């Protein structure tokens, strides 16, 4: 009984903890990155954590997609459609920001001849 409730307690928070872990890993990668393309990737990892958190928050046990073209409304529980819409917005925002960041990285590679942040020598002091 004790171990069973411990298991439920873990499953009740595990998805949230996964989101926190992914976010922290992304931050670590971003801070210690030796390559700007890798850094842009790390930022995308941080953003993935927001998807995980949003979708985990909206999940309902036994729920299916909130699309009623093939199920009768009310016949089954559905997951929260709002977080799905928020996640979609988030995905689009992330993709476009990544495009801008990569465009800047392309130009840095040309102007500085490197994508290693340790070797960028401008803008100090």
């Amino acid at each position, binding site marked *: 009984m004790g171990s069973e409730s411990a298991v439920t307690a873990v499953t009740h928070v595990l998805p949230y903890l996964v*989101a926190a872990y992914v*976010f922290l890993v992304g*931050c670590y990668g*971003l*801070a*210690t*990155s030796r390559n*700007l393309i890798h*850094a*842009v990737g790390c*930022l995308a990892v*941080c*953003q993935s*954590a*927001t998807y995980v*958190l*949003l979708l985990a*928050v909206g999940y309902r046990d036994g729920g299916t997609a909130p699309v009623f073209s093939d199920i009768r409304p009310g016949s089954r529980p559905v997951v929260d459609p*709002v*977080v799905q819409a*928020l996640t979609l*917005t*988030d995905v689009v*925002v992330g993709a*476009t*920001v990544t495009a*801008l*960041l990569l465009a*800047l*990285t392309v*130009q*840095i590679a040309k*102007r*500085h001849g490197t994508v290693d*942040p*340790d070797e*960028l*020598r*401008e*803008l*100090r*002091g």
Partner: protein
Amino acid sequence: MHRLLPLLPAVPLLGAGLLVAGGRHLPRPVAEAFGCLAAATTAALAIVLLPHSSPALVEWVGGWFPKGGESVGIVLIGDGPSLGMAALVSLLTLAALAYSWHYFDEPPRGHAGTFPALILLFQGGMCGFAVAGDLFNAFVFFELMSAVAYALTGYRIDEAKAVQGALSFALVNSLGAYFMLMGIALLYARTGELAMAKIAEGLNAAAGHHGPDALTLTAFVLVLTGLLVKSAAVPFQFWLPDAHAVAPTPVCMLLSGVMVELGVYGVWRVYGTVFSGPGGLPAADVTRTLVVLGVLTGAVGAVMCWYQRHIKRLLAFSTIAHTGLFLIAVGVLKAEADDGAALYILGHAGVKAALFACAGILLDRYGTVDEFSLHGRARHLRGVGATFAVAGLALAGLPPFGTGLGKAVSEEAVGAPLTVVYVAASALTGAAVLRVAARVFLGFGPRPEEREGEEREEDKTSGADEEPETRQRLVRVPRTMGTVPAVLLAAALAVGVVPGFAGLVGHAVDEAGTWGVFSSVHWTATGVLLDLLSTLLAVGLALVAVTRPGLLSAPEWALPLRRLQSGHVGDYVAWLLVGTTLLGALALPAVLR
């Protein structure tokens, strides 16, 4: 009237869409005139709505009015501060477009209208953020203004510095935005709502008599991190000088004049609407958090500002110092301090934009913004020099400029110990600008020497050998470029002297605030004296620095501080993490009670 609120972001966005669709076959003046028209229409709309903002305009986009107190739509708030910010954004956008009129070199070729379109998108994003009453919607417009700002900062891709500064800006600000989104997700999980006022109700209901818990604290810290990155509070500030030093001048006017201040506005809005109830954070903890950060920001910004020779970078650090002062005013959570911050932001926008505009003229005329190499070279630019010097005095708080009034009102509200920070930060930043004015436009003092001995990395960011932003170096200053800073400075003066204006601003801010108190805003004798004191200090410091450069040259103890500004994006991210932890530690007593 409330029906028109969504048009504040929609008009400039539609203007941008049409400009890109049809702009490539238009002659450049037509495309620019269209851009100015769209910006001016938005400004007019905000100003027309302002008198109707008491009581606040509330609009549910798409007509999703709440039924039984609940809605599925997005709410927009049109109160004095939100419409005032939208008006300020729009007017400054118009000034930036006028400044870049015809002279600013606008690649890419064959895409006439791209630059005004980007500026309009920037305006739309900022206006949308100002009127947002829904936390996720605020995040969307926050990201819109950020994304456009990255592209505008890196506009001059031929310059190595520009692309590096833009990337640091983009990485740090995007990360900050994701912190904010994590916080929004936590709040949604707790309350099941996204409208700010509904989240506050949910937090109050969930907290009951226990007060806030760890989730509320974390959500507060995460949302605040995003907003404070935007407002460049220490230790989130590193991206700002890098971005402002490299962005095109019209863009700097907007970044420094309103975008950074929108971060402070966001802090005010989010705390006042979401976290100020019994389920939010107690006032004492919020004050501790914001005032500590504000004091640090003011001090670091002012000291760093003094030791710059790159004029645009110097102005960028002065923006950091002033943001610190705004944060202190917002942080003490008093109606009168909010009024002071609002007036200070209005005055500062005009003054700082005018200063950047003057720096831009130097860049386009001489191909450098290095204080040392420009020594005495701009003697014949009398009008520009006068504007620059007066703006420096206004930055130090000279009455009756709006900056002076805002500073005086804030000082009165925050109390004696914090007043020292106001006087010191405004005196030091004003002195730095006056020092530049005396050297560059008057040729005072001995020509500053390069540091003897080995050259340090920190001295290389001097602003020498920059590319002008105009197609070729200017021989004479075009009328638009000369007029815009003067008009901006006059506007900053008007904030302080137009009778009744300060009272109106104060009333609007108090009405929208959560304190339920109305304070009267006007000049006081103490305020004028303190303003004169900081102005005199600024003039004195500038004189000493110009005539006896040895006395005030960079001491060794300032070097570690300058070394922190390393240009390395990994460092900036590390500091961001430390800043979040600092916020958490400062607000921690809220959950320990």
